[in-house]
């Protein structure tokens, strides 16, 4: 019901006023940076502050707020000497961000002391109540971070997801990120001459070379490792009750839900992925459509039966 924009505009105003009050006056350019304002937005918000104040709402009751030369001036706003307390979502967001970076093993001493102070302020009675675990078992994240910063080409030996193959590739790492519990490195892969995302835990060996690469001006924002593409293998699967966890773990499309089963469209870069899933699910799922996948289930299933017979 409440517009998110109203809340975020007010939130910024209530943070701006105490900051300027404490500094007496502040550079317009500094305020624009700190609070993420455009000049137009800042003027509009100052004009709003200027018409608000104490009941009576006469000239002596209203706050003062204006730009003088290059200075932001705010006065007669004693009730706003401090910003409002953090909401629990804000506190969580900031603490979790700090702890995540510390958990990456990439923190500066300043960040560590900042998180300590924040913990004390936000949860004095509940310290250690928040744990963020983004451990990278391969210890390669730091290496990729430096390589991305220094724009160094990295040679990797990679075990691909789905396909049963190990390849050697030269990659130009742009970003290293973690999502859904896994670490990924995204960048340009010279082997396929295209943008690719690799799972860091699947990189067996790596070597940072001396070669410097050209970084594109705009690097796409890192996101979930998998997005459907035209080359994908697509199949249709019915999931029974015990297999419904699949909906949470894979990016699937639900086609139909009935009392007994849920029909999904499953896409993956290789037929091996749904094939292994179907073998694992056994009687809890049924392949409805997908010739490539059926072949792969038969093939891998046959080999597994030979092992476990």
């Amino acid at each position, binding site marked *: 019901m409440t517009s998110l924009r109203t809340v975020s505009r007010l939130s910024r105003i209530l943070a701006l006023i105490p900051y300027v009050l404490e500094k007496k006056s502040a550079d317009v350019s500094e305020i624009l940076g700190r609070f993420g304002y455009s000049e137009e937005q800042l003027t509009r918000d100052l004009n709003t502050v200027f018409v608000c104040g104490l009941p009576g709402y006469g000239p002596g009751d209203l706050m003062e707020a204006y730009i003088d030369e290059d200075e932001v001036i705010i006065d007669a706003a004693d009730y706003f000497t401090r910003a409002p307390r953090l909401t629990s979502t804000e506190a969580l967001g900031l603490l979790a*961000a700090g702890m*995540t970076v510390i958990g990456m093993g990439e923190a500066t001493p300043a960040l560590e002391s900042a998180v300590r102070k924040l913990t004390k302020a936000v949860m004095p009675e509940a310290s250690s109540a928040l744990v963020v675990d983004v451990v990278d078992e391969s210890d390669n994240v730091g290496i990729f*971070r430096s390589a991305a910063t220094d724009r160094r080409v990295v040679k990797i030996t990679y075990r691909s997801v789905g396909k049963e193959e190990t390849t050697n590739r030269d990659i130009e790492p742009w970003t290293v990120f973690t999502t859904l519990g896994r670490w990924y490195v995204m960048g340009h892969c010279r082997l396929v001459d295209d943008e690719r995302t690799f799972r860091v835990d699947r990189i067996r060996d790596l070597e940072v070379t001396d070669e410097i690469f050209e970084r594109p001006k705009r690097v796409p924002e890192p996101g979930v490792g998998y997005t459907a593409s035209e080359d994908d293998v697509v199949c249709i699967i019915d999931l029974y009750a015990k297999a419904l966890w699949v909906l949470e773990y894979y990016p699937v499309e639900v086609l139909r839900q009935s009392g007994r089963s849920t029909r999904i469209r499953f896409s993956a870069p290789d037929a091996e992925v749904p094939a*292994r899933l179907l073998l694992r699910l056994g009687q809890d799922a049924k392949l409805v459509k997908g010739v490539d996948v059926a072949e792969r289930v038969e093939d891998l299933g046959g080999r597994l039966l030979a092992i476990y017979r």
Partner: protein
Amino acid sequence: MQNVVERVLNLLIYLLESPNPVTADDVRRTVLGYDGQTDEAFHRMFERDKDVLRKLGVPLNRQALDAWEVDYGYTVDPDEYAVPDPGLSEEERVALSVAARMVRLGGSYAGLDALLKLGGIERSVGLEPLGADLGAEAEVLGSLFGAITERRAVKFDYRASERQLHPYGIAHRRGHWYLVGAGAEGERVYRVDRIGKLTVSEKTGTFAKPKGFDVRSLMDGQPWEAGSDPEVEATIRFDSEVAWWAARTLGLERPEAELVATVPVANRDALVGWVLSFGDAAEVLDPPEIRDEIRTRVEAALEKLP
């Protein structure tokens, strides 16, 4: 929106400056922007503005003004309103700015809103080529975090039954958020994304966490170690092609060639899933029950092919 922003600012100032609780009628008569409304329109407006105040982090208290609880008054305690000053140095604020621009929660960089209230965001520092996405349940997670820090009991639906819990902590692990706390069944761990219909108690400080309780203690281990199956040890062989990767997951030294490892299992399904993720490059050697289980599943999958 302009009107709403002005009205809420005036309302907040009025509440902060009033020495006594103010009623809805007081607000209507006194605060600029509420005049000239029908009763119904005024109440809708006032409800909405109170909601905005709460979303901003304003501690709006409501108390009965008479023994019959007919009239209610609202207060905002200026001391309670002010954000506690963590005493960040400039360098620390910059470090937090960098971190907050790296980590997403609930689809946005949630830490940035907090930083605004703590002196603003430093944007002059270059962006790190490093990022993290901690998933997308920010609202429930924020409510739980608030309950934990203020020691409020919670009630929620979980797997078709209602649970009551003293929440001790939350943890992000392997891509999911977990809630840890004590209820009728003792200390338990719940997946936050499976929590439905959360209610947080009005009362604060209702319980104390046992001394020395560590959220991590309930969270440690591999997925197949935590479960209700009878505990057994499983021995698995990994081909040399994938042995390095399995060793990494298990926290073992990288083997020269193939790897034979023994792991404790209390969740068979999770173990079977992990082993089959290696295709036929991994084999459970022991115990026979798990080998049988894998064979049964493979046979069932083959029979069900179209």
